[in-house]
């Protein structure tokens, strides 16, 4: 019994101090399995543009509301570790001059946080009223006469209430999801894959160019 207790305590302690969940997605067996790929100095990169419909299925967070999601895999050369950083990626949307850097999970989650619609909005509700009143007491003349009767009917539909906003817990959950599914950063010796989020809406029919700078040299991947 004591042994069980200490085992359980050890497991609980391990769970408490365990780090965050797995980072990124499972990389495919080769860069060529992605929509587009490039190779330089023995390091290969594969990328696939995630459509809004796919993003809706892949993420609980409504990431397609604000961002373009790209799944990226980095395959480092066998004899040399590769430093992976989000700062090495740039997205260019064809027809525009702007070059975008990826947003971190924290920033993306914050931008996805939905504000509640204000309670202060003036809302009009249809109301029907019928009233009848006769007689009463005249305080000036002091005369009392007639009959006091009152009948009233009112029907009102309150209408839709204010839309709920995202809570702090929602924001935290979105950040966790985007972070855990994001491309792992740091020095890697084995293939890694994950999503990167660019703060631009993913419009259909626009060609996007993903640039990756490897040791000062650019690798260009065209995404459609």
């Amino acid at each position: 019994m004591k042994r069980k207790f200490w085992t359980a305590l050890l497991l609980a302690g391990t769970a408490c101090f365990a780090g965050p969940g797995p980072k990124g997605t499972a990389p495919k067996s080769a860069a060529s399995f992605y929509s587009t790929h490039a190779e330089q100095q023995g390091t290969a990169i594969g990328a696939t543009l995630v459509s809004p419909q796919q993003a809706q299925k892949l993420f609980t967070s409504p990431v397609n509301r604000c961002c373009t999601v790209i799944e990226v895999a980095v395959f480092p050369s066998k004899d040399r570790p590769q430093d992976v950083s989000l700062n090495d990626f740039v997205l260019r949307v064809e027809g525009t001059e702007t070059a975008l850097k990826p947003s971190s999970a924290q920033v993306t989650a914050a931008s996805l946080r939905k504000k509640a619609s204000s309670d202060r909005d003036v809302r009009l509700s249809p109301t029907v009223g019928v009233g009848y009143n006769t007689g009463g007491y005249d305080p000036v003349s002091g005369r009392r006469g007639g009959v006091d009767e009152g009948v009233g009917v009112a029907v009102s539909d309150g209408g839709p209430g204010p839309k709920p906003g995202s809570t702090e817990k929602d924001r935290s959950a979105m950040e966790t999801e985007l972070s855990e599914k994001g491309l792992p950063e740091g020095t890697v010796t084995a293939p890694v894959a994950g999503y990167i989020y660019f703060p631009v809406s993913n419009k259909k029919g626009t060609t996007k160019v993903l640039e990756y700078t490897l040791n000062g040299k650019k690798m260009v991947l065209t995404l459609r």
Partner: protein
Amino acid sequence: MSLLRSGVLVAATLALSLNLLSQQTLTTAEQPQAASPAQSQNAAASPANDLTQAQSEEKTAKTETSQDQNKDSTDSKQRKTHIGLGAVTVGAGYSHFSGPPYPYGYGPYGYYPYDGLYSGMLWSPIWGPYYDPAYFSRGYGRGEVRLSADPKTAAVYVDGGYAGTADKLKNIWLDPGAYDLSVTADGREPFKERIYVLSGKSVKIAAKLSESKDKPQP
């Protein structure tokens, strides 16, 4: 999925307004007697006689006090209290609320600060961590996990704690956050997935457990 809450309130009110009519018939207030011309003349004629003037003023004040007392007693005798039926009002109301659920932490009776502290996981020395089945019930600010499992009798674990069997946990309501969901059954490969729950959102999980490769030894 936004939650739809509707409440219907029908109220009928019968109000009797009672007017407290306190009619105060005030008697005509008697004006204090003006000083006689003789006294005025006397006062004007001998302004230096302060003592006499002070005595006369004292007398006048005493006379006014006695007059006020007489007036009050007269008023209390003539004051009558009337209670009259002012109005009879009958009202009916209808109210319909189709708004959203209360945000996390806010219930119908205000903010509940201990929501975040309650994890819901219990501990049994025999079975280990487990959840009270009522913990997964629908609540304000929660998200839904729609679980379908094969076999239906598979055991469901949330963050390592036993939640129940899959057939009784088709709809799991959880607070926003990330959870480790696992579904296990004897002779089947365990199903494990990291799930993310957001308030008002629904996540579908289909856990089809394949046959285990490691057959149990006889």
